[in-house]
């Protein structure tokens, strides 16, 4: 491993130009707040509705939108997201739909649009081709929950070539050596996993979250966003005090399931503290 345990000074990570996600997070910072990042699965409950719901995210204050790619074996997802993505797959979802959805959301909003995908979907298409198509659709990059930098050679090269962000996760259990490696491999932001567990709403924000953010900062991260278990405005405010962005997924998916895009709009407005949406 080429990285070292000593905390790097922030300057080692020179501002990366051309990162759409970084720009969106920095714009929020300029307004004196943490960025809000909302997750919704591609194609749930159908393609048009998923696009409409993602647009509502942006209209109600989301700075970054994550479009989750349905996958047959989502080991990092809890029951709500699993159920949603399983439904999407059952109706015959095909991968190219993701790029169409990304393009439609990019077209209609100013948010940075990332995909969140398990790696085999990238691997099967080929890292280069996946990156090319994502960039062509106007996507900002990808979050890859089951890819660690150790295995990311092909993905790093492809994202570099196409100017895409690549977001790796850092966990409460990650060693300082690993945090340094993750920070230096990431582009856009570093995803701080707030709890040891899978996606899903939780009552409380784990106190591990702040430690995760501090560890990443000590390793030189300029932008650290926190996700997993975040579901209320109080969580968002609490995390926003120390992180650069707050990621909400399951609560939004449940809102979409129960009330469609208008429920997503209402919940997003509540979570972001936006006056009113629409």
């Amino acid at each position, binding site marked *: 491993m080429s990285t070292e345990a000593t905390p790097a000074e922030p300057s080692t990570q020179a501002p990366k130009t051309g990162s759409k996600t970084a720009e969106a997070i920095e714009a929020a910072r300029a307004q004196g707040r943490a960025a809000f990042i909302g997750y919704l699965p591609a194609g749930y409950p159908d393609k048009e509705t998923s696009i409409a719901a993602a647009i509502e995210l942006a209209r109600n204050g989301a700075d970054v939108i994550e479009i989750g790619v349905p996958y047959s074996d989502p080991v990092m997802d809890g029951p709500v997201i699993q159920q949603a993505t399983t439904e999407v797959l059952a109706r015959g979802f095909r991968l190219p739909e993701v790029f169409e959805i990304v393009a439609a959301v990019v077209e209609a909003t100013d948010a940075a649009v990332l995909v969140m995908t398990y790696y*085999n979907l990238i691997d099967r298409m080929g890292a280069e081709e996946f990156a090319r198509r994502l960039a062509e659709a106007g996507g900002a990059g990808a979050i890859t929950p089951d890819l*660690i930098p150790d295995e990311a050679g092909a993905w790093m090269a492809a994202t570099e070539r196409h100017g895409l962000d690549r977001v790796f996760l850092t*966990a409460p259990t990650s060693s300082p050596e690993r945090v340094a490696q993750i920070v230096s491999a990431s582009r856009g932001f570093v995803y701080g996993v707030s709890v*040891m567990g899978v996606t899903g709403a939780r009552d409380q924000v784990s106190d591990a979250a702040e430690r995760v953010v501090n560890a990443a900062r000590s390793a030189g991260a300029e932008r650290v966003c926190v996700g997993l278990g975040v579901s209320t405005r109080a969580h968002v405010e609490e995390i926003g005090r120390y992180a650069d962005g707050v990621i909400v997924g399951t609560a939004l998916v449940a809102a979409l399931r129960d009330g469609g895009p208008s429920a997503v709009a209402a919940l997003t407005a509540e979570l972001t503290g936006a006056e009113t949406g629409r």
Partner: protein
Amino acid sequence: MSAPAEETQKYRDHEGPYFGSFGGRWMPESLVAALDEVEQTFREAKQDPEFLAEVHRLGRDYTGRPSLLTEVKRFAAEAGPARIFLKREDLNHTGSHKINNVLGQALLAKRMGKTRLIAETGAGQHGVATATAAALMGMDCVVYMGSEDTRRQALNVARMRLLGAEVVPVDHGAKTLKDAINEALRDWVASVEHTHYLLGTVAGPHPFPEMVRWFHQVIGDETREQILAMEGRLPDAVAACVGGGSNAMGLFHGFLDDPEVALYGFEAGGDGVETGRHASAITLGRSGVLHGARSFLMQDEDGQTVDSHSISAGLDYPSVGPEHAYLAETGRATYEPVTDAECMASFEMLCRTEGIIPAIESAHALAGAARLSRKWGAEGEGKIIIINLSGRGDKDVETAAEWFRMLPGQENDPVAETETAAKTGDESPSPAPETGVQA
């Protein structure tokens, strides 16, 4: 892939994380620290004479090692010209090879201070073995099992519960082994502080493929010693069934660096590879990442995992251990599919000719070896094939009875129609093709 070099122990000493282009750690970051801890504990334990002595003592006094090597002359005579020996892992405590790995990993878990074991299971053999080790060592145990498999293997579910384990039926996806692994991983991400995930095969992220192999290599080491003592020479071929591939890797390991010994792995061909309803990941040959390793993977054009199918729950897995993928790619081992029908014909044949009821998983190896003996023809005279009889068939009696239509209400039900020979192929849903190999 490099051509076979002249180094000794070339394959035998191969350590992870990579086997050629296969293996690695395609895993969420949250689990990396735990994998590092497992790896470090394993490496230290291997050097610790006390640990080695404890593994050996448990193998001898609890499992019943060494397991026998039995020549099966009547089975061999029906199969073809070659002589056939069975490595009797079916005689181990709990009824399969799985106990070797489970006792070893449970000892490691204790060494790490973990108090809870979780496991996935397909046929239930690994779940039973894990529940057994947990009972023996006073640890909590939760076993994840696809709900389709809890139905197919109700007897093993009861066994695990009797042993004090909690069995959690998994209702997601295909409701089989791969989904049970997903659920075990989700548990582990949240419980890693006090829980060890006792993965049951040579798949998964590093160090599992290397570590599980290490705990099973006793199979190959004993077999090598036994055949040398009995026959004064090495076998011409060794054969084993391959789902994830742990029993095969254990047997192969004793012969990896003996080029004169051919290694055969038999995958579950289900209804035939050409039907798409099978579990022959190597035969299909598409590289991908699942459950932490790069290996051959049954997947569609988008990279979604394709559901596997097999009459045997234990082979019903859409991928395979990365070292097998490597051995297939280098050509050191040969992998072929065996259909449900071929497998069940050999299952019946072993019952009838030798008085041994095999696990349906292991019957795939019997069928593959019989095919090999036939294929050799006259040249096979005097050649020796050793098959790993990885498990016994008690758990499969109902499935077999249904297959042969012996259950109440089926046409071979009552005391009528006793003779066996005619049964075999006739009622099988699909007649056994001579070979299902595609490419």
